[in-house]
């Protein structure tokens, strides 16, 4: 599997460390009443079949955090952006 890092160009998957679902968002409240949200955030993950946004750290390259959008079934990669751009886009939308 080849991943096109926005900084380094096309690199093999071995250079990356994956860190799970990028689409989940950290709850902003510390109110105990939001404990369910925190439980979801910390422990619960979907296991989607198909398109998936996933954190990837270019650990053996430029050390940037990226978000790779790939198909979990076929491993086709649709898009790679920096985690910074991903977060900015989420704030904007």
């Amino acid at each position, binding site marked *: 599997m080849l991943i096109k890092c926005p*900084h*380094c*160009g096309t*690199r*093999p998957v*071995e*250079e990356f460390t994956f860190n799970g679902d990028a689409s989940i968002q950290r709850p902003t409240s510390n109110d105990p009443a939001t404990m369910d949200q925190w439980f979801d955030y910390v422990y619960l993950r979907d296991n989607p079949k198909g398109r998936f946004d996933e954190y990837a750290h270019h650990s*053996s*390259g*430029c*050390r*940037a955090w990226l978000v790779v959008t790939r198909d979990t079934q076929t491993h086709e990669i649709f898009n790679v952006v*920096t985690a910074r751009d991903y977060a900015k886009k989420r704030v904007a939308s």
Partner: protein
Amino acid sequence: MPDNFQRVSPLADIAIQGRFGADHGAPGVTLSVRHPVLIATVIARKGKAKALADALKSWRGATVQWAGAEQYFLLDKPFDEVRKKLEGLASCSDQSHGRVIIRIEGPKVRQVLCKGTPVDLHESGFEIGKSALTQMAHVGVHLTRVGRDAFELSVFRGFSESFWEWLTEKAEEFGYQVI
């Protein structure tokens, strides 16, 4: 801050000068250790990436190597000078003791390096002055093309001995010399 430490290369007793490996014809590659060398990491502060890039571009006598997004290795300038010059633009740290730079050059340089890295080092896409961060033999390597057939490989000091062993082993079939 005065630098009272005597800088000893970790390869001082290992990178022995001479001719090794295949002994017919001219050596395929020539290896040397750049020592001592001044190295600083420079990382742009928030929103200062453009200003930092401009400041580095116009700095005479400094060797600037790309080292990740908005990050650089800055060579050949004393650290105090680096910090003073880039105050407010970048976070800097002195890596002169922390990294080892091995220079490798010669007609077989790409054949040696391609045993370790998937990065395409053909000069059509990897020009002189360009840098890449990659891994060779599980060691993180910062490599820079410094000439048509010449590269500098920068590794963490603690990995330099095993990296040197790996590198020289890969060069054996072409014959190599250490200067």
